[in-house]
């Protein structure tokens, strides 16, 4: 048999990484791949920080800003923030991390590590390497399927800022889901401040299933809030509620404005996110409808005329 035919036969039914589909009858016997932690320490070395900073400013930010129209607000709240902090944001798109790391002041961005889903970003070595290089990512176990020792504590101890998405996954419909308690537990135990960040428009720009923003440079609001400091005697549940309130209020500024959102919060009119399983709030279609509402601010897609 010619080598070309041999390769064709061998490649039959396999993807570009050489992975085969599993016959149905073999499904019960599939062995999870040997779970090895992808090494990430190299990404926190000085040369890697320099390379990442150059990539962020020379590639990530220009590309993101060329494809979307980010409006960044609230960076001034970070002026008096010193020492490691945990940035928490709602999560609805793969654009979230690039938007935040590219909009943060350099002193934070250069010392930032991003928590990334171990089962998504670290399942293939190529993807893991790229994520670690660009975002200084570290694996976060989402489903508790294996006991991965979290690096978060170690990173905070070493003075790194963290960017975490406490919802645990990208929103299905653009609406924020309830936060998982891990981030609040971490902040309470380490006594580090939390910076709430709200992103609006990212879902409409690049929802699940897309790997590039929609055409037309959609507007995305990236809004930083005042840092929240865990107070003496505060439990992680209380801090978690404060985090959710802060992010919800920042997101609501899109419709209500800064003062309006503050008023709405004071009047208890802001609806806190719930778990999708808990239901409540608007119907699924209405949530997506709302999340994908085009922004009326700005020129929108440029149309060439002759």
């Amino acid at each position, binding site marked *: 048999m010619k*080598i070309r035919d041999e390769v064709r*036969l*061998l490649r039959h039914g396999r993807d570009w990484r*050489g992975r*085969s589909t599993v*016959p*149905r*009858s*073999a499904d019960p016997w599939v*062995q999870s791949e040997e779970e090895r932690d992808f090494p990430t320490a190299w990404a926190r070395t000085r040369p890697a920080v320099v390379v990442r900073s150059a990539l962020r400013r020379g590639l990530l930010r220009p590309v993101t800003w060329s494809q979307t129209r980010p409006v960044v607000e609230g960076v001034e709240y970070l002026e008096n923030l010193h020492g490691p902090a945990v940035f928490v944001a709602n999560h609805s798109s793969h654009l979230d991390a690039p938007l935040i790391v590219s909009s943060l002041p350099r002193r934070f961005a250069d010392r930032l590590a991003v928590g990334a889903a171990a089962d998504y970003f670290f399942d293939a070595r190529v993807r893991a390497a790229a994520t670690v290089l660009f975002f200084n990512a570290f694996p976060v176990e989402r489903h508790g399927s294996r006991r991965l020792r979290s690096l978060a504590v170690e990173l905070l101890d070493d003075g790194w800022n963290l960017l975490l998405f406490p919802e645990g996954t990208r929103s299905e419909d653009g609406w924020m889901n309830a936060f998982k308690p891990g981030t609040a537990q971490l902040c309470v135990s380490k006594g580090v401040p939390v910076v709430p960040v709200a992103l609006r428009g990212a879902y409409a720009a690049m929802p699940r299933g897309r790997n590039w923003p929609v055409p037309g440079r959609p507007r995305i609001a990236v809004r930083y809030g005042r840092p929240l400091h865990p107070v003496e005697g505060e439990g992680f549940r209380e801090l978690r509620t404060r985090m959710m309130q802060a992010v919800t209020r920042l997101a609501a500024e899109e419709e209500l404005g800064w003062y309006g959102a503050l008023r709405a919060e004071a009047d208890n009119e802001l609806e806190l996110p719930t778990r999708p399983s808990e239901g409540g709030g608007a119907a699924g279609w209405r949530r997506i409808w709302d999340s994908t509402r085009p922004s009326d601010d700005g020129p929108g897609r440029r149309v060439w005329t002759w």
Partner: protein
Amino acid sequence: MSRPGFVLEVDERTPPLLMHQGEGFRLERLPLGSKVIYPPDSLPGLRNVDTAIARALLNPIGIEPLPELLRPGMRLTVVFDDISLPLPPMQTPDVRQRVIEHVLEMAAAKGVDDVELIAGNSLHRRMTPAELKRVVGDRVFRSFFPDHLRNHDAEDHSNLVEVGTTAQGEVVELNRRAMESDLVVYVNITLTAMSGGPKSVSVGLASYRSLRHHHNVHTLRHSRSFNDPANSAMHHSYERMKDVIGDHVTVFQIEATLNNDTFPSSMGFLNKREWEWNLADQGRYLGVKRVNELLPAKSRRRLWQSTAAPYGVTAVNAGVPSEVHPQTIANVHRQQLTEVRGQSDVAIFGLPYICPYNVNSIMNPILVMSLGLGYFFNLYKNRPIVREGGTAIFYHPVPGEFHPVHHPSYIDFFDEVLTESIDPVVLETKFEEQFATDPWYIQLYRKSYAYHGVHPFYMWYWGAHALEHLGEVIFVGGNRRTTARMGFKAASTLADALEIASHTVGSSPSISYLHAPPLVMADVR
């Protein structure tokens, strides 16, 4: 934990599956709905084999600990399995070496001077000094070879003794030195459920006079299968002989079982399920296959024959043969047994490059037949994988090549006997005696490195049950002349083979593929 064996049902998501084909292999796409019988994953080997051996020798089953059986002035004979086990040969140190060293350490400590080591090669060819050295290790070899480390000679009548006759009139004639010893220590590797236990001494040290009682067409046709001792007439004969031997000499049997790490890491893809091959496995598959095809035939054979398996030892047990062997069989089943529901119309087997009788040699057509219709067909419990009257499809080129030193009687058997008849009964009654007593074959067996003159007959009988059971035997890629001589058919492709088989099993037969090696035994319910 290792995964158990399982039966795959080929669907559209199944990648092409690996088939061994003599000194090569290939990928084959089986028809949808075919069943593929996979062995359990390789079991973890013992971490400390030496500790396990010492524990077995000090805590044997049904007999005193070995040191208590040893005393100054006694005659001790250590017998070990010959080169036919395991397959492929295991990476050194061989587990037999480790066991023998432990036994000799104890014997030395007890002041035993009269020690003989004998390879239980029965009617197999003698092992060369280098082969002996590889099995027993350098230290043992230097201490005992050539005077006290030797091959069993089944034609040295001065060194054979008739120890008795079974109730069914079976003569038990065995090695005199062993039978006149105070203690026989048998060091066995049980690779398949067929070997070990009562078979070890009654076959390994026997003469033709004794072997003919169980190595014959009648017992082999009634051994269903010979890998299931409880249902094997051949093993029932061994059992009867064991009782006669037990009245005569004390046998301390040490049995080791191996896991399924059959191929070295460079060919690790051969140990894995195809849909679990990663890119490195696929690269190795292409690389090894390509190099294998480009190599000259001699180099290719040398390369395959130099392959040593990185087997792990899964258990070591010691005791009287009848009591230690059930434990050994349980360990073999733990590694090899896969439950299969129902028989099929067609069974497919990919025959590898090696069988028990072509280590460092050539697999001639008779050995291919014995490997396929004997060993592989009989890898079952309860019922054969293929129904009565069904078709067996084997993958092997069946080249018309013979090793002139190792297999001289095979050449005559192929050219002169098979041209007369392929019926095992006719061969047995008309030709066996002549080959078994031919002085030239006996001379070559004793002084050269030839298999005994009668050995090709035994190989043919090995397939007697399959010949009786099957309606059709087809070799994919088989040499037309050699397969036709043996009464089989050759096909270029699987599609052609199924086309040929359609005359006996119809156009849409049920198909089972026994995915071996690594070894798997089907428990057909």
